[in-house]
């Protein structure tokens, strides 16, 4: 009998969920950031915060926090990898589709509700620019 794939998400989503990159564990003051952006609402089941450290108009370092499902955690993790090292203008161009492609496509019903991190990133960049 062909058992098929044993996990609801792709291997790369699983990898980012099981071993998320660049997350901020515990108190946010542990990370020296220039701006933080937020998206979502726990009532809807997903909320993300992106913390950025900017040097020479580039995202020098990045951290995130997420309350949400596996694909929310994996997609925020993926976004942090995509955004690191990019100029702010380049980072602003990262779309939900880019995150989805990076993760090898999420289940359709997950795409709309859990791929939100880029909005938190855009919010952080906006706040950074307002304050600098």
């Amino acid at each position: 009998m062909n058992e098929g794939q044993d996990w609801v998400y792709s291997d790369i989503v699983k990898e980012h969920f099981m071993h998320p990159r660049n997350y901020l564990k515990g108190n946010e003051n542990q990370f020296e950031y220039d701006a933080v952006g937020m998206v979502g609402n726990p009532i809807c089941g997903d909320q993300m915060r992106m913390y950025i450290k900017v040097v020479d108009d580039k995202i020098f370092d990045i951290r995130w926090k997420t309350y949400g499902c596996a694909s929310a955690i994996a997609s925020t993790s993926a976004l942090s990898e995509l955004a690191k090292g990019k100029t702010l203008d380049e980072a602003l161009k990262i779309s939900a589709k880019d995150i989805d492609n990076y993760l090898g496509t999420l289940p359709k019903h997950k795409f709309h509700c859990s791929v939100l991190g880029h909005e938190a990133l855009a919010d952080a960049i906006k706040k950074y620019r307002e304050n600098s």
Partner: protein
Amino acid sequence: MIYLDYAATTPIEPEVLDAMHEAESRFFANASALHTPGHLALNQIEETRETLARMIGAKPAEIIFTSGSSESNNTVIRTFAGHEIEVSPLEHHSIFEVAEKVAGNKRPKLFSYMLANNETGDILDLAEIVEKARRVPVPEKSELFEGKTDFGKELVTDKRGAYVHSDLTQALGKISIDVNKLGLDYATFSAHKIGGPVGVGALFVREGVPFLPLIIGGNQENKRRGGTYNTVGIVGFGAALKKIEKTKSVEKYDTKIRRLRDLLGERILKEIPGSSLNSSLVKGESLPNILNASFRAAEGESIQLYLDAEGVIVSTGSACASGDIKPSHVLMAKTGDAEVAHSSIRFSFGINSSEQDVKGVMKVLPRIIDHLQKISTIEMEKK
């Protein structure tokens, strides 16, 4: 693997599997046929009917076999299409979604209240509903009362202002059931929650109450449900019923399983910061095998999948897991807090669960919750 999702589906008991294998080869004939193999198959079906009837205090003729609880529920609700239908906020989708679609304002009215809820295990006070139903005056004219059976007998002899249905899917085998003591007119049952196969269920329909078949097209089930008899499945259902009777499963759930459930609940509260229980541990207030808990700042699907990766199988009331937008309507009705509903996990025990299972869960769960709480946007201290 630590399997704690018995309220979703139980594994098939070995005795049930043996009975089904035997039925596959011995009772394969169409049970509606007049020939000997057909008649022998029908005997097997009738035996299950008698077993279930005996266990719930019904007459065999009051039992109809269906494809499962969703069909049983649909059948009752649709019988009352165009009529007033009152359902509890805890009902299964196969009740409230249908009721929303077909309910009207005619009398007699239908009340549908599950005895025990599938997500939290909450036990409802059905006596109150039955009493309420009895006070509804009998309508003078009702299309549900009109008509005669093919045998010239009146369809509805028990004319009332309201009737009561209860979904007993989760209750069967866990707490004792007597449809007369409960005062029910209709009751829903399923095989795959008691060690039987998926795809078989039953509907208790009290003699003389309104009934409209959902599936028309044959004389099966005394013209109340068309379709070739699922002999093998029904045999499996019968074997599962006999097993719960023989092993005194209700007593075991009330003692051994209740202790395990309470132990897990107590340990979660004690060892995991931000945890709360959505199931009562007070005897009589909930099923002994279900524990629903919420973990502040940790989302249910993530908890479920981290547990899965550790070989612990549970379910969640979070919207994310089901692909829905809204979290569990049951937890919303109970807690009124979407975050609590999104952050919930249901642990449901089976008759063979052991203390090792509780230990296994508590070996990994605190670490998983701690990880999710630390990466969460939600602060641990509630504002």
